[in-house]
């Protein structure tokens, strides 16, 4: 069976939706972070899918951009985890709903 462009994109869409729903629905801040990561990787997958299925001369960007975004995602995960750990130490809680002192 030939690889159709739509298959990869649908997979990416499903992954993205799972990530978003996890980020919104879970209260544990670590799961929120994981959801964000999944959503990010779904986008990478979408890029790579296009790179694979589009003609070769258009596909270069689709191969390069994910490389950058993976590198940056690694850094972002570091910072994000560090922040989460700091917040956890301060608040003694991993419940995202208790982080509300921005409000007034």
């Amino acid at each position, binding site marked *: 069976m030939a690889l159709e462009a739509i298959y990869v994109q649908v997979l990416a869409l499903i992954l993205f939706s799972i990530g978003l729903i996890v980020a*919104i629905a879970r209260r544990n801040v670590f799961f*929120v972070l994981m959801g964000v990561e999944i959503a990010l990787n779904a986008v990478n997958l979408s890029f790579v899918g296009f790179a694979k299925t589009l003609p070769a001369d258009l596909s270069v960007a689709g191969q390069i951009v994910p490389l950058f975004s993976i590198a940056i995602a690694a850094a972002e995960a570091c910072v994000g985890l560090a922040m989460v750990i700091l917040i956890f130490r301060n608040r003694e809680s991993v419940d*995202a709903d208790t982080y509300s002192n921005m409000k007034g």
Partner: protein
Amino acid sequence: MTNLPLWLIPLFPLVGTVLLGAIAVISSGSKKGPAEGIVGFLAVIFPVLAFASVVLLAWGMPTEGLRQTLCNWIDIPLFKVDIGFLFDGLSRIMLLFVTGIGSLIALYSIGYMHGDRGFARFFAYINLFLFSMIVLVLSDSLLLTFLGWEGVGLCSYLLIGFWNKDLSNCKAANKAFIVNRVGDIGFLLGMLCLVTVGGSEILNYDSLSAFIQMLIAGGHVEIVLPLLSLAGLLFFIGCTGKSAQIPLLTWLPDAMAGPTPVSALIHAATMVTSGVYLLARMGNLFSLLPVVLLIITLIGLATAFWAAVAGLFQNDIKKVLAYSTISQLGYMFMAAGVCAFDASIFHVFTHAFFKAALFLGAGAVIHALAGEQDMRKMGGLLRKTPVTACVMIFAFFAIIGFPGFAGFWSKDLILERLYTSGSLGPIFYGVGLLTAVITAIYMSRLIILTFFGSYRGSKESEEHIHEAPASMLLPMVVLSIGAIFAGYFWADSLGITMFKDSLAPVLSTAQSGVAHVHVNPIIFAGLGTLAALLGMFIALKVYGNARVPAAKGSSAPEGFKADWTFFFDTIHKFCGIIPVAVLAWIVDMVVEKILQAAQWMVGAIAEILGDGVATFQVRKVRLQLALSVAGVAILVAVVLLTGGSI
């Protein structure tokens, strides 16, 4: 050996600076400081090497001089400057005595600074000074000269404030630096003026001369005369700052706060004469500008007279010498003002010897009296420190122009050139001669108060009076020999014109415009001698037997004497310091009060708005995320539905 590269001369003191600076920094943690033997050796050997290379170069110098371009410095469109050196008759003379006297004074300082904690630091500064001074003198363009000009100003600042534990020393250093900066602005603007007239290449001295020759040949002088006059005037302001002429002269007496060898080297023999050097170096330009020349003569005359009278009122031995330096510099400027550049450089040359000898002698006296500088507490030192006394008395004969001594030849030459300079000449000559009389009076007063009569200090201190060590005496003796014989390089009445001939290739075009009236030099020599003798006689009558008033707390002059001495300080205060202070106060008010009020207002508005917006904030982070995702979804939907063309 004439193929010695010119950059070797400034390189030696630079290496010395780096080595001594490194030693000073490394040893800064230890309590005792570095070994004085090795530091002293390093401090003297580099100036001596520089002096030796200057001598070697001077020996085989071709008449038109040596020119070497080291490298390119600035190369941008419309502005090209090279780092190049020019070794000709003028820079040869300057370099010989700068490095020569510099070496002698470095040797002297080993004795004078013995036991000082900043021993290595002091010599690092001295070497840095010599480097800057050599760059100033040796450079072939105004821009590189300016680099050296700033360098010597910096070293002057560092060395005046060398004993920086005392606040008054730091204030004197600041004053010297700031007053010099005012002059430096003149120098910078002068360069700017020249660049406006002829492009950046005429910053080079050779090109400047060629440019001026071209102007004269083409008859275009009148067209650019206003701009050139402005440039000349601005350069002259730079010179007044560096050479302590009216109106920027107040820093030099205060600069005596530094160690005495520094006063001798920087504030008497070399640095302060760089203004005269610049005038001579640009003689071709100045000889075209009659108005500027007249101003230079008048300023020199006024400075010489004022400083001589101020010198009469001082009680501090170094202050007397400081005012005498200002006065002698006034003579040099007078000579430059009547286009007698060779005479003024000759006076620079002889003055360097006798003034350095006087200062070193004063240093030896201060050393002998354990730091006492007030002449009212001295007296009778002739028997206690005979060598110092002899050195100072020889130098004293040189400065008052006693026949046969160095100052006699150079000062009479200047006075003669003043007399023959034109319709105003006799008036200039009269004032110059009067100043010479006053010079003789205040210098005789110094000698009488210090060396004759009986000792006026306390009994205990009298027992500690001792002659200086050999490392201090040797340079003094050498300099005093210079003070006696330096004048014989150019003795018109004896037919010796060696000095004049060596300068002629550089300065002859600048001086060719002056009509040479032949006068009998014997009459001038006679009148000059008479002036010196008259001054000595008056001083002997007034100060010889008079009871010296007992010294009160401070050595500063009082009453009308203070008014005269600090006249220009007062003028600076009203014309310079107070307006700037008022301006600073206004700016401070604007920034502190008005701008800050505006700042606070903006801040307050942001805070109030923020408080309002914060009420829209929902409590849960997840809900916010969901809302923002929904917002994005709505936006995308709207864009899709409308085709992005709302």
